[in-house]
């Protein structure tokens, strides 16, 4: 640091009062086409970043983050699964040599050695050589680690029963069917409905939960009359008025007009 006579400071501060030129450092040790970071390179980085961000946003809109039903600690039958980036550790603990009495090996020893070696890599491999092909031991160990991680993750994904996993976590809508409603009575008189959708209207072996999709009254009438998917149409027995009452009851999530349908299915108020 410069000291002594002739130095002027800004006010009574420690800042030296002198003009400094804003010249970038010399990168002569890298011969070739160097480029200024500001603003040339940064502008290009921002453009690449924007493309990246757009792709990322499309992903988030196309695949909303999953949410299962609320945690129920009493449900001991649930098959747990960590997030995908822990799957390789999780899978390791399923092998005989790393499970049961040997859990310590799978949970602490193997990951400990691997991550410890990663942390201490500069001292394990202190040679000057930087090219990967000139340091075969380090390179092959790292490749082995990468292959093991990919293999273990693959195995774990392969072994997991994804359909069962999706079902066990599904949000079960708590629908309180109003059994005193006129629509309910009409439903109970229709054997063709009950046959597939069940007496409780919540679905059975052949038909889905009636309230599963958000249809409005008119759409429900249309489905009952013309059928949808595997469901045949024209099975309703009764007057058009009864049909409308039933459709309204269904569109209203099992409530008489206006008292239900909190999911904004539109046509609730006639």
């Amino acid at each position, binding site marked *: 640091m410069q000291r002594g006579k002739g130095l002027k400071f800004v006010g009574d501060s420690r800042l030296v009062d002198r003009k400094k030129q804003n010249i970038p450092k010399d990168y002569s040790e890298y011969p070739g086409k160097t480029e200024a970071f500001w603003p040339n390179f940064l502008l290009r980085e921002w453009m690449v970043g924007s493309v990246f961000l757009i792709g990322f946003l499309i992903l988030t809109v196309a695949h909303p983050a999953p949410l299962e039903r609320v945690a129920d600690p009493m449900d001991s039958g649930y098959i747990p699964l960590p997030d995908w980036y822990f799957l390789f550790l999780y899978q390791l603990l399923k092998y005989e040599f790393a499970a049961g009495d040997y859990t310590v090996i799978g*949970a602490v020893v193997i990951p400990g050695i691997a991550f410890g070696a990663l942390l201490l890599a*500069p001292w394990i491999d202190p040679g000057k050589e*930087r090219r990967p092909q000139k340091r075969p031991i380090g390179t092959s160990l790292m490749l082995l680690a990468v292959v093991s991680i990919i293999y273990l993750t693959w195995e774990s994904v392969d072994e997991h029963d994804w359909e069962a996993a999706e079902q066990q976590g599904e949000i079960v809508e708590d629908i309180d069917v109003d059994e005193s409603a006129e629509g309910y009575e009409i439903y109970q008189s229709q054997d063709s409905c009950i046959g597939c959708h069940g007496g409780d209207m919540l679905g059975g072996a052949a038909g889905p939960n009636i309230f599963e999709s958000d249809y409005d009254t008119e759409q429900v009438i249309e489905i009952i009359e013309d059928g949808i998917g595997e469901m045949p149409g024209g099975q309703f027995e009764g007057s058009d008025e009864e049909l409308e009452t039933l459709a309204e009851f269904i569109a209203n999530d099992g409530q008489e007009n206006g008292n239900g349908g909190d999911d904004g299915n539109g046509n609730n108020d006639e």
Partner: protein
Amino acid sequence: MLQKIYDWLDTRLDITPMWRDIADHEVPEHVNPAHHFSAFVYCFGGLTFFVVVIQILSGMFLTMYYVPDIVHAYESVYYLQNEVTHGMIVRGMHHWGASLVIVMMFLHTLRVFFTGSYKKPRELNWVVGVLLFFVVLGLGFTGYLLPWDMKAYFATVVGLEIAESAPIIGGFASTLLAGGEIIGAQTLARFFAIHVFFLPGALLGLLGAHFYMIRKQGISGPL
């Protein structure tokens, strides 16, 4: 005008050296994808930081709605996901961003390893980087519990069982994280505190050290 503002600040704060370190330096040819396309491998670190910034911002907005207690946590996430305007997108960004950070960081680690960039004089920066790796994995683990749905709860049960299997410190670590014998209200409060205060604090400190060392030591030269 801008020059005047700059000079005014420079007289008082001596920002030229800081400005030079942050922005006014040159990008060597061998890391610039515009000159050698294969140099895109040098972008993984920057992209990791970019996603970390997305995580911090989206996380800040999530805490505006999230309630860290076992009665309301799930309801607040459900509300955020289904009712709040653009809540689905913000939660989606945080959810997918968590995976993306891991992917980018993994690629960045491999790039640094295979180019031998961790060697003298950059050993300490490598160590800080590996510590960052652990912090990010910790953020992933603690954040997974917060929605308090089935998946979250049982993954945490398994995770803490694994922690407990460690000799000597296992029981202590598990109790410290869970806040008691059962995984419940205390656990959620602790995971929230760790996820939102402890680990981000560590993350920012380590990131500062990481970037300071890059500027101090420069980018490693061409192979």
